[in-house]
């Protein structure tokens, strides 16, 4: 396995979709290649840190109340009922 192929397999590795054989080859390569080891660590850490980016703020309570009321009215009108 070369460094280029190794780097292309990191995504599959993180998705747990690599075969045992390829995982073994990947690990074998990384044991001897410090560049790929560092690449893998920083690549997987980038994914981990992305998960820690905070969620955007919520829609306001007022917006949610207005939306729910609007949808319920529409549902009633679709079914010929009074809101």
């Amino acid at each position, binding site marked *: 396995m070369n460094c*280029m192929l190794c*780097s292309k397999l990191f995504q599959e590795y993180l998705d747990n979709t690599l075969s045992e054989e390829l995982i073994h080859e990947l690990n074998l390569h990384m044991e001897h290649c410090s560049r790929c080891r560092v690449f893998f660590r*920083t690549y997987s850490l980038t994914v981990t840190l992305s998960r820690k*980016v905070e969620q955007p703020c919520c829609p306001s309570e007022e*917006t949610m109340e207005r939306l729910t009321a609007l*949808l*319920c009215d529409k549902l009633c009108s679709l*079914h010929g009922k009074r809101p």
Partner: protein
Amino acid sequence: MSKENKDLSDEILVGRIKKGDRDALEEIVKRYSQKIYNLALHVTRDAAAAEEIMQEVFLTILSKIHALTHDAYFSTWLYRVAMNAAYGYLRKERKYTEQTVSEDLENETAAEYDWSSLSDDILVSEESKDILRTSIDSLPDTMRMVVILKDVEGFKNEEISQALDLSVPAVKSRLHRGRLILRRALGDYFRRYSYSGAEE
């Protein structure tokens, strides 16, 4: 709202909405409004637009719900409608750009600097989160959406493929390239951080 609705599957709730069940509709709105809002906000970076899109998405869903033949696929359909609405907004506002990334990322096989050994305090500092957030926001649109859906929101490749109308290989390719860009941005930041710390 009926307490039992919380435990019902989307499929059952959608079936009930089709029959005019208001409680089922409220539960679906409660279950998905935050996610739709987040997606819209990530795409548009505008809170007012995100609220407008969220409303448009639920109104579209409600008016077309009778055409949904497989109720179990509701969430996939919902996200697809949300993506279309968000992209529609960008096109309308002429903010949509599908620029290509010219950097030769595929040849980037390793970082020279191993920032993975930095302490958690530095790695997850507010400043590093800001760098990451800004870098995600700067990605080309579809790449940004793939990264957000996968790495921030935790969707599966197949779900992203359906929501964005891309093949799974196209999703994987954009994801990988997006991660490489973010990794490079973080590497540059942490390298600067470490050097500035060493000079003090």
